[in-house]
């Protein structure tokens, strides 16, 4: 079991002392509980002095219980602990909470110490051991806080150092090579820990084996003086006590929840307002997207302007027309419309604004020559514009007149809003002919 470079002192402090301390702690405590069961508590001094106790004992116990709990979890479930600490946010939170709790402990201890030293009532029940314990605790907690400050991220580095050391002690294969190179502060903290195990049976610390956990859930009890003068106010005292108990419980819950929420979300809330810092690639993509949306808005605006000024608006090339799939365009009223090729081979322009509630009608013609409005299922015949009988739409979709011009702007054919068609398109012109809607026809309609 002996490794290279272990000094006699190391073995004495980190192997012999632990086993001695554990032995004394276990058997000493059992002996004391057996022989002097009534001393197996912290000898309450609440009746002698109450206010200082509240502001000392409460923060101290709150802090130390949570800190000890974290130590126990770190040592007993190393895998779980390590996986938790590999998340930086959690590590940061644990370190911060740990340091905060140790400050709470120190404050509590100082209050408790001052109380022991200054209250004349307490002086009579204070033993030397009590003062020694207070001093040792102050030292140990101070060491812990100092480690948290000077040798940061202990919650993380413990998994390679102190945790395997503690396991080697528990499994009776002592191996101190994990801790021999640790800083003096940490070593002192470890020695302090074993010292505490050592003195448990000889001090008030033994009360930790008699923690009255059931007090948390039992119905509240009130100690009342056997004094007629105090009986009179007994009921008020109970009511006030009940209210305060309720308040403290709710306040603790809300404070703790708010604290957790704050710790968990503070960074994200800050980052939310700080704003994202995009990579060059993301930035470029974002810009391109922005630009394309802006361009489509610009196109839309241009269309609107064009409709104010131009006498003719291009729908599409004549050759682009199809009988099955219509081409969307925007008419003079800035409403959607569709261009098809009709049965006569000429353009067929029909409004696409459903006469029911104004949805945009689809552009695919089904086998019965109808187009569908998907909102409330109305089928419109493209030849007549009429909706089917069961459709919620009752009015037909209006047809729109058109003009066909060649490249030079010469009008080849036109259909007016009333449906009359003039002119024909010669076969040789079909490639270059373009379909327009005309402002004059809009005025007629």
């Amino acid at each position, binding site marked *: 079991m002996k490794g290279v470079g272990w000094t006699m002192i190391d073995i004495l402090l980190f192997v012999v002392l632990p086993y001695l301390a554990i032995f004394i702690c276990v058997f000493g405590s059992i002996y004391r509980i057996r022989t002097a069961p009534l001393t197996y508590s912290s000898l309450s001094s609440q009746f002698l002095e109450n206010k200082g106790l509240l502001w000392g004992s409460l923060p101290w116990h709150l802090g130390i219980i949570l800190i000890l709990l974290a130590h126990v979890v770190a040592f007993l479930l190393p895998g779980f602990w390590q996986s938790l600490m590999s998340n930086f946010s959690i590590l940061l939170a644990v370190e911060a909470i740990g340091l905060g709790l140790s400050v709470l402990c120190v404050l509590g201890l100082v209050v408790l110490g001052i109380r022991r030293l200054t209250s004349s009532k307490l002086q009579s029940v204070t033993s030397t051991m009590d003062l020694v314990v207070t001093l040792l605790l102050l030292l140990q907690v101070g060491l812990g806080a100092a480690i948290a400050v000077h040798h940061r991220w202990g919650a993380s580095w413990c998994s390679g150092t102190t945790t395997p050391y503690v396991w080697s002690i528990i499994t009776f294969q002592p191996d101190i090579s994990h801790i021999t190179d640790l800083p003096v502060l940490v070593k002192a903290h470890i020695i302090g820990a074993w010292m505490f195990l050592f003195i448990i049976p000889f001090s008030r610390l033994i009360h930790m084996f008699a923690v009255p956990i059931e007090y948390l859930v039992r119905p509240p009890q009130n100690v009342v003086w056997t004094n007629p003068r105090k009986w009179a106010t007994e009921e008020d005292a109970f009511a006030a006590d009940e209210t305060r108990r309720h308040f403290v419980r709710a306040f603790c819950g809300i404070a703790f929840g708010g604290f957790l929420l704050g710790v968990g979300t503070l960074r994200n809330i800050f980052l939310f307002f700080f704003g994202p810092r995009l990579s060059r690639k*993301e930035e470029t993509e974002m810009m391109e997207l922005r630009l394309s949306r802006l361009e489509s*808005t610009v196109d839309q605006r241009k269309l609107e302007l064009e409709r104010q000024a131009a006498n003719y608006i291009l729908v599409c090339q004549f050759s682009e027309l199809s009988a099955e799939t219509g081409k969307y365009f925007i008419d003079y009223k800035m409403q959607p419309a569709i261009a098809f090729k009709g049965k006569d081979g000429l353009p067929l322009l029909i409004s696409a604004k459903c006469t029911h509630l104004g949805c945009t*009608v*689809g*552009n695919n013609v089904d086998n019965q020559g109808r187009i569908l409005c*998907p909102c409330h299922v109305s089928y419109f015949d493209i030849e007549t514009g009429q909706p089917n009988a069961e459709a919620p739409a009752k009015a037909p979709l209006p047809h729109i007149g058109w003009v066909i011009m060649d490249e030079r702007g010469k009008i080849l054919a036109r259909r007016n809003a009333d449906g009359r068609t003039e002119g024909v398109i010669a076969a040789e012109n079909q490639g270059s002919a373009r379909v327009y809607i005309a402002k004059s026809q809009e005025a007629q309609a």
Partner: protein
Amino acid sequence: MIRLGTAINTIADFLRERFPVEKLNYHSMVEKKEVPIHRMSWGYYTGGLTMFFFMMQVITGLFLLFYYQPTVSDAHVSVEYINKHVAGGALIRNMHAWSSSCMIFFAMVHLLTAFAMKSFVKPREITWIAGVLLLFITFTFGFTGYLLPWNQIAVNATKVGLQSVEYVGQYLPGQLADVPRILRETFQGESSVGQSTLGRFYALHVVILPFALAGLLGLHLLSVQLHGMSQGVDQPAKRSEKFMSIFVFKDLTLWATVFLILFVLALCVPFESFLPFPLLSPFNALGSTPAGIKPEWYFYFVYYPLELLPFWVILVASLVVVGILFFTPWIFKGTSRRTLGFIALLAAAYLVIMTVFGEQIYHFFKH
């Protein structure tokens, strides 16, 4: 002159009873207040929950305000930016969406329980009417907020919604027939749903409606505290608990629990996951309306009947219901809470069935 004097006196008496100034102090509004304990006590929490979700809306809404841009070219991109790039942005937006639905849900539950508990009779008429107005404002919040992401379903559903306003015109005589169209164009701001509409809805959603709601909520809460909790059941409850601090802390505990649920829900389930993607793509003015356009679930109870029945039936029914809601304190003055509870239960059943099975009912009758 004597008549005018009595009229003023009547109004003054009315107000004096609704706003008893002598009770306008901390002692009688908070310290002395008691909350009855009976089988309907849970109803006292529904209003608080609605207010909690409103507060969530204000907070998350303020967050979103930092990044959202209300223009037709940028609205959709900015929403995408919040979702993809801003730290916690998707969560905040998702909480805003979930919480909006929850707010509307609990506002409706609150209305029904308050009705069943007869919390509207003298001197609580003003509380009730303020509450009904608050409900309508909440619905308007939902309608205006829906447009802001400027995606296919948002713009198209808004188009349909606004167009149905115009539909009312056909039942109005003469000059009045034009009023709904003028009304729609006022809200729309231009011939089709576009930039002007977005600007108007944005102003309504983030400034006008919140101020209106906050003001009315102040009136609502003031009268609740002035008159205390209504007794809620026909036989006055034997037990009660202190409002301060027992009930307040119970309320806070509930809020904390609900916040946790909302937070986890928003973290795990994107609100938009209930819609097919094409509906969430940016609005395209040149193209067919995609299939499956329908309003948010909280409009189903009027949307599906609208699809099934003639428009005038829905119009008349809505007017009657709105009228009943506003005049409830006088119509149901003498009705027992048992009967009121039964009516509330029927209304709740209708709302639940239409919301959950509306689509099936629609298909059953239409195909």
